[in-house]
């Protein structure tokens, strides 16, 4: 089996230091909408200068390099045990090279392992076997500030007047955006899962964030809701960093999951503007990054 360790280090470097083009484009559009001279516009201008600097110097966009979340879609014949070993080796090396901050803390002893390796859940690695001959590895780095403002609602919710339908989903998500204020490093991107159980809801609310910002949900009802949630979140005027302003979120992505008859969860993963996700494909000796 191929050793992908060096390629995975490059995937980590790209994710940590080079913001994806779709995200940068959204931020460049946002800056034009804010009043000249406002704190909101100043924040976005600094953010964009930081994005350029991080790219040119190969230094982390944000010092919180987050939880590394890997999804590996592999053809038949790859050993997931060995792939995991390679991911672990790459994470350790990337930490040594300062692409990642040592972020893995033993909750009971309070000791930071110093390597970004912890238990079987740190880093997070998902595997699934796919058809064809191309391996695809996706990586997302999700920081703690935005992870902390994620939220899960069990509908109906009387306080919000939110019932078990899309109208109720809308209310829950808007409440989550309000509660987050600027704490999740607005402008943010909303990953929303409707249904599932508590665990699958959170997992899916992150998976949906692998979608491109400018893609369109194939379900017209969800596509409409994604646009509406973006527009209405921005009406709240929380703005970049919570300074007040026009841009509170730059996108929303929704996925529907099957659920038990008794349960109706709405799960929101808030992604900060430093929306770090990258993809690598491996076909024989050919390795590509996007």
């Amino acid at each position: 089996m191929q050793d992908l360790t060096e390629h995975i280090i490059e995937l980590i470097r790209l994710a940590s230091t080079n913001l994806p083009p779709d995200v940068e484009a959204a931020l460049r559009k946002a800056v034009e909408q804010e009043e000249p001279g406002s704190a909101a516009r100043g924040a976005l201008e600094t953010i964009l200068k930081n994005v350029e600097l991080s790219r040119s110097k190969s230094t982390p966009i944000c010092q919180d390099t987050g939880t590394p979340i890997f999804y590996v879609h592999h053809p038949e014949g790859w050993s997931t045990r060995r792939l995991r070993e390679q991911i672990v080796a790459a994470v350790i090396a990337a930490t040594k090279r300062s692409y990642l901050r040592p972020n893995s803390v033993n909750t009971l002893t309070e000791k930071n392992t110093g390597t970004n390796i912890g238990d079987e859940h740190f880093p997070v690695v998902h595997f699934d076997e796919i058809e064809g001959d191309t391996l695809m590895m996706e990586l997302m780095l999700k920081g703690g500030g935005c992870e902390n403002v994620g939220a899960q609602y069990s509908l109906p919710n009387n306080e919000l007047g939110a019932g078990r339908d899309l109208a109720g989903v809308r209310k829950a998500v808007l409440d989550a955006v309000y509660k987050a204020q600027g704490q999740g490093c607005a402008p943010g991107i909303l990953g929303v899962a409707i249904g599932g159980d508590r665990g699958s809801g959170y997992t899916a609310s992150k998976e949906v964030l692998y979608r491109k910002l400018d893609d369109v949900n194939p379900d017209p009802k969800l596509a409409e809701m994604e646009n509406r949630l973006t527009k209405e979140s921005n009406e709240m005027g929380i703005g970049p960093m919570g300074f007040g302003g026009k841009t509170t979120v730059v996108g929303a992505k929704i996925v529907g999951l099957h659920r038990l008859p008794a349960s109706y969860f709405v799960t929101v993963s808030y992604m900060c503007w430093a929306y770090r996700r990258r993809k690598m494909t491996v076909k024989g000796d050919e390795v590509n990054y996007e």
Partner: protein
Amino acid sequence: MREVNIPISDEVVRSLKVGDSVALSGVMVTGRDTAHKWLADTFIKKTRPPQGDDLPTFDALKGFLSGGVIYHCGPVVSGLDTKDYKFVAAGPTTSIREEPYQGDVMRLLNVKGVIGKGGMGLKTLQACQEVPGMYLHAIGGAASWIAQTVTRVIGVYKLDFGVPEAMWVIEVKDFPVVVTMDSHGGSLHVEVEQKSKSVLDELLARG
């Protein structure tokens, strides 16, 4: 953009208002969750006796923090093996987690400026009026940009807390912040929270 040197006098603190942009220069100390809890448990609530290097560390911190600035930041630092430390990425972390401790820490050490992101609550706002001090908002995520303003790493205390949680003493030049909580009781965060709440209520009523 107003230029302010650390240590900061009461007069300068009182002259700064919510919305002012400031370029900070001088020596500051990073401190986040573990550092604040350690300070509170050992020197404020005194629920644990000082041990190990606690007392000399506290004395050293007093020197840097009296009239000084604490920065909520867990940096990426290079040169860990050689102790030739350099800040590679150093944006602010979310400040509200320090709300239970911050006001008391400001009073204990006469801290004039607290840098972080996301704003803080009423206990800290009260301390800003008394000490006097202020909350200075840095741009979250702008880590490479801010690291460029760190001209020197002077030293580090409590590195056993881990790199992000250790207290790094750094010298900065033109570190960019916005005053979002001032010594006169003003808070941009309270304003934005209230305005957004009234819009949320309208949106929820719309069905």
